[in-house]
């Protein structure tokens, strides 16, 4: 813009300058011509007077360097000429100024000489004797005039051009400066320059504010999205149809060990498991797919869904979530079902076997009694099992439906010891009870279930002549129930599994010992409902101590 203003200004200045020179030269030329003509008239009049008075002798001492003087007789022949020989000159009667002078007494004309770049002015006057005196003077043409003045004109031109360049430079700078000083980030702040710019600047200002507002909104939305995806535990990955990662949340990045620069890379470079490739290729084909993949020794379900836009797959959303617990629970449930069926089936087989033998009369009547007692004991075992399962499923339902009341652990332990005394005697085991009465809030039948199962185990897994001691301690903030035996003990590697349903340390001898494998499971659940902590100390071959700490 500066350049353009500069150029235009220079152009205007130089054009005006040249026009001025041309016009002034023209005006000057015509002025000079008329001045010259007047002078010529005066000189002609003077000369005519001189010739009238003195005749031809007037010419003798005349200084005639500037003018050419010619005397022409009335018939046109030249009588005298100061520059040429009068005798050789042609007849001048036809000349315009002579004719005019003969007619009017005075005449003038101007003729261009073809050879010289100048014109001649002629002035003629009729003398008293009828002849005509003519004076002529050479007049320089405008070209010659300009040529003659070229030096000063050049000086003037150079000075004027330099001056106009300088002024144009300053001017253009000055015009543009306010534009350059505009602060486009805040266009309304310093518009001192031009009112004409105000509408434009106002508009820019408005649009800028609008843009800023929109950018803020976008940023806010982006932040919301990021906040949501960043804080979610599930992995979320957005892919384009070629499998390039567009967005990956921190959970997914952590799961797939993707670095911070994984955005823009292909998902294959982050994880190349075939299952992932399959769900992605399904999604690219426009179908939703899901698969379980294993990462960091946990199971994750991958859901891939295509994002359809304009009838084509525009992207893929991958969602990864941890299903390890679900799978584990599923596994537990399957195992439990299998165990229950197995545990129920074994006594049923015995019962049905004994019954079949009796039915087919294969045995003598005196053997029927032992068979019946076997059937009875197996049936008892099944009843026990079913009861335990029912107990457990009650416990599974939780504490909501239970009514809590004050219970004395010591009294309950006394009852249990009394109940189990016959079994203890049968196994030659001494059961002792020590400690103080301790009252806690609890569900009576569950608490007695806990004590019963613990004592029952302590007696069962004991050796002949062994001891079982139940100890109840009443502390300030809790009550501690511990059952200590001098039995076979539990190897350390089994200690954290004994509370699982149907878990047996010694699987091969479980049948001889009896029991359902659910006792400790019931203890664990009941303890959980009472908020009690269960701890196991055991040394194989020496004995086991299981303690429960009930909060008051």
């Amino acid at each position, binding site marked *: 813009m500066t350049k353009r203003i500069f150029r235009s200004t220079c152009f205007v200045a130089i054009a005006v300058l040249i026009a001025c020179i041309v016009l002034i030269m023209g005006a000057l030329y015509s002025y000079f011509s008329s001045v010259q003509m007047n002078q010529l008239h005066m000189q002609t009049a003077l000369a005519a007077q001189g010739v009238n008075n003195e005749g031809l002798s007037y010419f003798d001492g005349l200084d005639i360097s500037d003018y050419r003087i010619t005397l022409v007789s009335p018939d046109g022949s030249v009588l005298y000429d100061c520059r040429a020989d009068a005798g050789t000159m042609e007849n001048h009667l036809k000349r315009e100024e002579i004719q005019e002078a003969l007619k009017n007494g005075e005449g003038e004309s101007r003729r261009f000489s073809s050879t010289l770049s100048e014109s001649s002015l002629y002035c003629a006057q009729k003398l008293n004797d009828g002849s005509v005196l003519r004076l002529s003077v050479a007049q320089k043409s405008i070209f010659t005039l300009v040529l003659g003045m070229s030096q000063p004109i050049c000086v003037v031109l150079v000075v004027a051009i330099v001056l106009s360049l300088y002024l144009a430079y300053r001017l253009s700078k000055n015009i543009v400066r306010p534009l350059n000083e505009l602060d486009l980030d805040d266009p309304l702040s310093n518009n001192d320059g031009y009112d004409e710019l105000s509408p434009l600047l106002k508009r820019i200002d408005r649009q800028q504010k609008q843009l800023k507002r929109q950018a803020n909104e976008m940023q806010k939305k982006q932040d919301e999205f990021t906040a949501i995806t960043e804080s979610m535990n599930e992995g979320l990955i957005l892919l384009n149809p070629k499998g390039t990662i567009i967005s990956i949340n921190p959970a997914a990045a952590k799961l797939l060990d993707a670095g911070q620069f994984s955005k823009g890379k292909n998902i294959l*470079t982050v994880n190349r498991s075939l299952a992932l490739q399959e769900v992605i290729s399904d999604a690219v084909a426009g179908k939703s797919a899901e698969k379980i993949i294993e990462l960091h020794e946990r199971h994750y379900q991958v859901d891939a869904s295509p994002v359809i836009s304009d009838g084509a797959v525009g992207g893929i959303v991958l969602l990864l979530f941890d299903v390890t617990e679900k799978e584990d629970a599923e596994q537990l449930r399957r195992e439990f079902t299998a165990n229950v069926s197995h545990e129920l089936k074994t006594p049923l087989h015995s019962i049905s076997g004994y019954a079949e033998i009796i039915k087919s009369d294969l045995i003598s009547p005196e053997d029927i009694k032992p068979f019946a007692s076997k059937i009875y004991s197996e049936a008892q075992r099944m009843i026990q099992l079913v009861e335990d399962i029912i107990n457990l499923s009650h416990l599974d339902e939780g504490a909501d439906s239970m009514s809590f009341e004050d219970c004395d652990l010591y009294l309950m332990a006394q009852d249990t010891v009394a109940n189990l005394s016959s079994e203890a005697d049968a196994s030659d085991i001494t059961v002792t009870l020590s400690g103080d009465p301790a009252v806690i809030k609890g569900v009576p039948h569950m608490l007695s279930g806990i004590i019963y199962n613990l004592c029952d185990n302590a007696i069962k897994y004991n050796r002949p002549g062994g001891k079982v001691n139940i100890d109840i301690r009443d502390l300030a903030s809790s009550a501690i129930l511990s059952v200590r035996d001098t039995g076979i003990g539990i190897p350390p590697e089994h200690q954290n599994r004994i509370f699982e349903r149907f878990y047996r340390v010694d699987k091969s001898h479980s049948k001889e010992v009896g029991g359902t494998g659910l006792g400790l499971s019931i203890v664990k659940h009941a303890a959980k409902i009472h908020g009690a902590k269960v701890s196991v100390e055991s040394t194989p071959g020496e004995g086991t101590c299981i303690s429960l700490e009930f909060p008051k």
Partner: protein
Amino acid sequence: MRFKFDEQLELLNEELIVMGALCEKAIATSAESLATGDLELAGGVPELASRIDRKERDIESLCLKLLLQQQPVAKDLRAISSALKMITDMKRIGDQSADIADIILTAHINAGDDALSIGDMASAAIKMVTDSIDAFVKKDIDIAEAVIDYDDIVDGYFTSIKSLLTQRFSVPENDGEYALDLLMIAKYFERIADHAVNIAQWVLFSITGNREGGN
């Protein structure tokens, strides 16, 4: 034109990763069926091997097309030529995994019960294959060199298994064929580890341009 070239190079890279993943799957499946005696798993390996073969041909023709049409130079040329070499090694890994699966299927070998450290050797070989593919994916010189060094461990396993099996041969009542099959499997794992070393060396070549690689 160049844009298309870049796209094709990217495609080559992705195809190689997919092929690598297939190899990993093949050897892992063989090793798992070896450990668990799950014959159904082993039955799936030949199918994987033929998928690897198809992939090899695809990548081969893609490489040749790139070489012919784009006339690559310098780093691109190294990448394409090392890809051509790498797929051969990957294909061999796939074939040998299938061979292991074949032996498991016919000889009913269950190394899970065996005192031999063939399971450890399998894990070491799998680790090498996985790491060599990782080195390729991440273009990581350190991982590639670690793979090359790790080969000694697999070789060590092979030597110890071999000497254990030699002892078995000396006891006449042992099943000689069973021991031979075990030796074959160990040898295949050892070969797979060597192929992983080759892959790592080609990865090094494609990055550094130095063909010796490691030692």
